[in-house]
């Protein structure tokens, strides 16, 4: 068996060809894809929360459930735990079998297929950051586990992974910072069978956006807060029934609000970007949106807000590592199979060294990401480590996306091969704030 046949590359390329011509037509995906783009460009804002759900508090505990810090053996170790290895393996298999084949069509449709998101739910993704006593799957802090799961899914497709992970992010945030009532109200649904679409909305539509200084405001009015402003790059924007939204609390600092999308005064518009289109990103407008005072997460603690921003960046790092690994795994068989001047192009140093550079920088991205995550789990500070990981994943990740296309030459520029999509997706890493967290 050749290297190409052993790797996933050949299968993908074959699939890519099919998708380019027959498959998309066969599953009737082309028309919806075109419609989605048409609607996105022609339609303006409409009322948010078309699929809105109502949430009611289930039986309450006395204290919010919190995950305890992971045990620290004081050893340098790169071996995932048995559970983490199982999660890695099953998510990798799911990404290869379900996400990768659906990626091209979902990119065109600017949406993840609903049945695919249901299947992700069956994997228990939303339970990975939630304590057992609240229906989750873990007893210790699980940032690392979430990073490994995110990386595995992003190896299939970054956009679909983002769509899958957005509700899990909200579940994790509630575990980390929700009070008893907030946990009782939202977590049962998020760890249940019919998982609501949910996402973290931090970004805002302006250049040089600083997530620490949102222009969206929250004004106290009696027993309520009144929200005004705009949020961009919100995944699952049209489907979401629950958001965690960043806003400047008048007279205080930035804080996080739980927002059910049925609320009056909310408008949503699909805004497909350059990449990660399967996540169905959109923009929200909020005008005099009323939420009860109990919607404020962690009592508006600015420390929690800052941690949320960092955890979101870490989530993007994990996405970048998974997609950059996909690039490396794809270009290796390609440059070995592609013949020019009478021999495989991988026999040329200019080509081979580009592959080495991808591998080196990718490994650095991965280790920096793992370090930040392990520090978060063991209760250490991780602000600086997240900044370093983000710097690497944004810069080197974008470069790996570019090199992936470069190594395929003209073939890299056409949608027959996934590298053009990965090029677009990897540029998102340095742009997005929020959207998901680990």
């Amino acid at each position, binding site marked *: 068996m050749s290297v190409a046949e052993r790797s996933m590359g050949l299968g993908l390329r074959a699939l890519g060809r099919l998708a380019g011509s027959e498959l998309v037509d066969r599953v009737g995906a082309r028309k919806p894809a075109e419609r989605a783009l048409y609607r996105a460009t022609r339609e303006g804002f409409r009322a948010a929360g078309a699929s809105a759900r109502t949430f009611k508090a289930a039986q309450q505990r006395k204290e919010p459930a919190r995950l305890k810090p992971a045990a620290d053996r004081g050893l*340098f170790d*790169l071996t995932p735990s048995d559970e983490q290895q199982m999660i890695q393996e099953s998510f990798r298999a799911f990404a290869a079998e379900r996400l990768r084949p659906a990626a091209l069509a979902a990119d065109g449709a600017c949406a993840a297929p609903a049945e695919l998101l249901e299947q992700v739910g069956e994997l228990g993704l939303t339970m990975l950051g939630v304590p057992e006593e609240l229906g989750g799957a873990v007893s210790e802090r699980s940032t690392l586990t979430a990073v490994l799961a995110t990386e595995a899914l992003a190896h299939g497709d970054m956009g679909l992974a983002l769509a899958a992970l957005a509700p899990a992010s909200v579940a994790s945030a509630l575990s980390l910072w929700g009070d008893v009532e907030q946990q009782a109200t939202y977590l049962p649904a998020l760890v249940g069978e019919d998982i609501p679409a949910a996402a973290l909305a931090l970004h805002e539509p302006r250049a040089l956006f600083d997530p620490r200084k949102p222009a969206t405001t929250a004004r106290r009015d009696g027993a309520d807060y009144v929200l005004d402003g705009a949020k961009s790059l919100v995944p699952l924007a049209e489907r979401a029934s629950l958001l965690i939204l960043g806003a400047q609390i008048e007279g205080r600092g930035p804080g996080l609000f739980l927002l059910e999308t049925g609320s009056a005064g909310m408008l949503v518009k699909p805004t497909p970007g350059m990449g990660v289109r399967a996540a169905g990103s959109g923009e929200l407008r909020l005008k005099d949106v009323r939420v009860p005072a109990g919607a404020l997460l962690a009592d508006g603690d600015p420390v929690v807000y800052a941690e949320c921003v960092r955890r979101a960046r870490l989530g993007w790092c994990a996405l970048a590592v998974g997609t950059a690994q996909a690039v490396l795994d794809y270009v290796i068989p390609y440059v070995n199979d592609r013949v020019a001047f009478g021999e495989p192009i991988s026999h040329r*140093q200019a080509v081979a060294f580009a592959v080495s550079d991808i591998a080196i920088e990718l490994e650095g991205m991965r280790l920096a990401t793992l370090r930040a*995550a392990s520090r978060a789990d063991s209760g250490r500070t991780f*602000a600086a480590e997240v900044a370093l990981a983000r710097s*690497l994943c944004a*810069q080197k990740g974008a470069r790996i996306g570019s090199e992936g296309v470069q190594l395929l030459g003209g073939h890299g520029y056409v949608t027959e091969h996934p590298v053009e999509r990965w090029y677009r997706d990897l540029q998102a890493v340095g742009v997005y704030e929020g959207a998901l967290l680990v």
Partner: protein
Amino acid sequence: MINLEIPKKFVPLVAQANQVAKEVFRPISRKYDEAEHTYPKELDMLAALIDGMNDGSETDGAGAAGVRRTRGSDDGVRNGSNMSTALSIMELCWGDVGLLLSMPRQGLGNSAIASVANDEQLARFDGMWAAMAITEPEAGSDSAAIRTTAVLDESSGDYILNGEKIFVTSGDRADLIVVWATLDRAVGRAAIKSFVVERDNPGLQLERLEHKLGIRASDTADFRLVNCRVPKKNLLGSPTVDVKGGFGGVMQTFDNTRPLVAAMAVGLTRACLEETRRLLGEAGVEVDHDAPAALQSAAAAELLGMEADYEAARLLTLQAAWMADNDKPNSLQASMAKAKAGRTCVEVAIGCVRLCGSLGYGRELLLEKWARDAKILDLFEGTQQIQLLIIARQLLGKSSAELR
């Protein structure tokens, strides 16, 4: 369980090495940069101290011999002497790379002996300072092309070595030189063996000492081997030419020593970053790790990018050392660490000189010296390009005949 912090048990060792770097190396750093070829006598005392640290316990190794691989008896994760050595080298090179290279009994030859010597040889060469002689005027990166020959003289049982060796770090000061020579040039790399030659061997003639861009505290010697007789028992590894086994014997050393050279680069990189952070701080510029890079000053954003590359280089180095300690094949990771750390230290060192202006370029501070020292770390123990070749061949499944 995944954890990438410095192992708890090595924290005292790191602090100790940092003290040595700060109190012993830094104060004499400029002196021996200027007095090239003068023996740094301050190091004799220190060498004795390091010997003591090495003898302390099996896991607290801090010197060149720490690279010997021992099979772990337990099935748990080990943090052993490859890691402790890498960590202490990082600290010492934060002090001064040239002085670390001049440390008695800490030569790359010592690492080679530790990696491949048998127990009898280990005992016999114990406590001696061993340099490494591979490069020749016509063979550098292409070490399989060396021309120095070794011929067995059946009557005396000695090997007779003839040839020329250049760029031998600590070659003048060491007690022993580990010399690469070929038993049969027609066979190629499989015939290359390493021989331990005593420095006072009359057949080993010092030609000259090099004048260099940096690491001037360290002597770099050129030798001529003229009918140099070496006893049979000084051959490291197997004396037979095993064509299938190939280069394995002598190249095995590199899997262990490349992470150490990467560690040198990591230490020097940190020195540059800390000094630059201090000087930029005085100029009112600080990195804010929570602010988006685009919202920081250009200098702060550049410093952040350099810190990130440093972090990647450091973690790649620790990964390679951790794999060596746990007896995992790490040839790929060792080369990735060396490649990343080597280029990072050069880019960071010259970047820091640029950011600090006349303070960086002048000789009053050490930034300009570090920028000169840095370049060797992307050259010796395999250049950047050689590392990229090794990495690419492994990833692409190519032989050295296919991917040249």
